[in-house]
């Protein structure tokens, strides 16, 4: 079964390529999403089938395999509908990927830094970066950052007793 579904992944791949070649970028985002979900479905199917089988009702893989198959079938059907132009008309607002990429990149770096530097130093850098990306004035950015750090310390650490992550480098 897994081989069949792996082969069928050609369909969402083809619809994506067709959309790019035909310059129908309107639905490209949905097609890429569907392709990703289809591949996720195949991944779940592969790992679900690999789980041990204890009989119909107690098998850990029974429901996941059914659901993964369903996800693959639904995404295939939707991919075909989108490529035939039967899907909903979506608004085609202009995307600005650079701030988006910078924001996601900054967030990933921040999340990697938190366990190393601890919450407060990492958050200072991150919040200033995001405020810069949002085109906020420098002095106000510094004020907002300091206000945030004090608020977190007083509300979360002192009042609620939730310790913020400590860093390997700073502890």
């Amino acid at each position, binding site marked *: 079964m897994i081989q069949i579904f792996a082969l069928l992944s050609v369909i969402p791949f083809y619809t994506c390529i067709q959309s790019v070649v035909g310059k129908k970028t309107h639905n490209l*985002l*949905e097609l*890429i*999403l569907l392709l990703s*979900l289809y591949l*996720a*479905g195949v991944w*779940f199917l592969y*790992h*679900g089938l690999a*789980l*041990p089988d*204890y009989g*119909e*009702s*107690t098998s*850990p893989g029974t*429901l*996941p395999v059914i*659901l*993964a198959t*369903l*996800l693959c079938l*639904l995404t295939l*059907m*939707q991919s075909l*509908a989108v490529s035939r132009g039967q*899907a*909903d008309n*979506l*608004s085609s*607002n*202009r*995307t*600005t990927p650079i*701030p*988006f990429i910078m*924001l*996601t990149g900054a*967030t*990933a770096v921040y*999340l990697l830094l*938190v*366990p190393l530097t601890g919450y407060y130093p990492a958050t200072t850098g*991150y*919040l200033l970066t*995001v*405020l810069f990306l*949002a*085109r*906020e004035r420098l002095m*106000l950015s510094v004020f*907002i950052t300091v206000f*945030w750090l004090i608020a977190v310390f007083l*509300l*979360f650490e002192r009042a*609620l007793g*939730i*310790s913020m*992550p400590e860093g390997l480098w700073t502890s």
Partner: protein
Amino acid sequence: MMELISQLLTGLTTVMTVSGISMLIIGVLIGIIIGALPGMNPAMGVALIVPLTYGMDPSAAFILFVATYQAANYGGSITAIAINTPGTPSSAVTAIDGFALTKKGHPEKALGAALIASTVGGLIGGIILVLFAIPIAQVALAFGPAEYCMLAVFGLSTVVAFQPENWKKGCIGIVLGLLLSMVIADPFTGDIRFSGEIYELYDGISFIPALIGLFAFAEILTYFLFPESESDSKSEVTATPFLPFKSIKTFPAAFLRSSLIGTLIGIIPGAGATIASFISYGQGKRFSKEAELFGKGSEEGIIASEAANSSSVGGALIPLLSLGIPGSATDAVLLGALTLHGLVAGPELFVKNPEIVYGIFVSLLLANFLIFFFGWTGNRIWLAVIKIPSSRLVPIILVLCLLGSYASRGSSFDMWICFLFGILGCFLKRAGYQPATVVLGLVLGGMIEVNYRRTLLMGDYSLFYTRPVSALFLGLTILSFVMPVIRTFKKSKPNTSE
């Protein structure tokens, strides 16, 4: 009846003391703040104040707990409406219509609707608790795995409300959510499923960070990726006053129906406020005269969600007080607090400590009036927050999302969950999929799988349709999916005849 009135007067005497009223006010204020903080939930709020009550009189302590519990359920709606960050899981549904109304420039309407729905829902839940605690608790005990499974499957039918225009998109969202709920060590055999070497996933994908990611983080990523769409949709905030009694007069059925659904689901141990608000929203849309407005800023949608999650508190207290069975995580904390104060939940509590039981009943009812008062006053602050320019508000929401995700379990890994679900939510939204459908799958997945397998271990598939309550839910599920098809067919009939 006379005995009940006299017991309620005993409860009223317990509450109407300086310490009782102080605890009620403090509890409501703490609850609203805890509920509004993303990552904090009512259970955490009550757990945090338990150590403060060690030396306190049990009656005063339980007034504080109940007021916090009820107010936290309302508090979740504030951030859900103002900044699309559900403070509690049960307010996720409120965010859909609440934030849509805020974007249209009517946050005061959304905040007002949530407030009045919480008050009315909480009162109805409280009244049902007072009148029918013991007989209803016995009915709740009749729920077996087949009933739980079918209740959850019935909950899935809410997808019709979330994605009515494209069933395939709705189903893709739900199936994805259900699959993600199975990234957890198998609850029966302990086999590790789909988590590879990431041991943080052995307990499953943490729900609160996923929720914050799909709603709030996704919204911010959309703001950066599609600034045009954001500015298009941002309207001037108007200062139209919200009229609560007009709202009750316009949607009386919605208030009553949602409160009853919330109370009934609250009674069932393990179901809880989140499932109650999802089911109530689905039913709300089904019976609404303005169903097309749901998801686009419907006041009735907010009422459906908020009345249900607030009334579920009264419902959840029924099995806890009368049978000693905690219906939710918060009730489990309350059960622990009862033990801590040397009390045992169950029928004997009504006989031995009526002043505490009826004190809880009365404080639950009174807390709703205080929630209304403080909510009404506090809404001005939230309206001011909404008016802050996006360039200042968005970065703060971003760090708040990540902090809330961390605070829910004290795990840095949960910040990654929030981030990744944020990216998923951003693309789902832009492609016309409702992230709420994924949340629905995530909420119900575990309940469906565990009870489906338990049912089959007890017998066979016939249990699903031979047990009366299970059969009822099965019938309702089929109806929920079939009715929209029939309606569409009826609507298209005159056209075909022409």
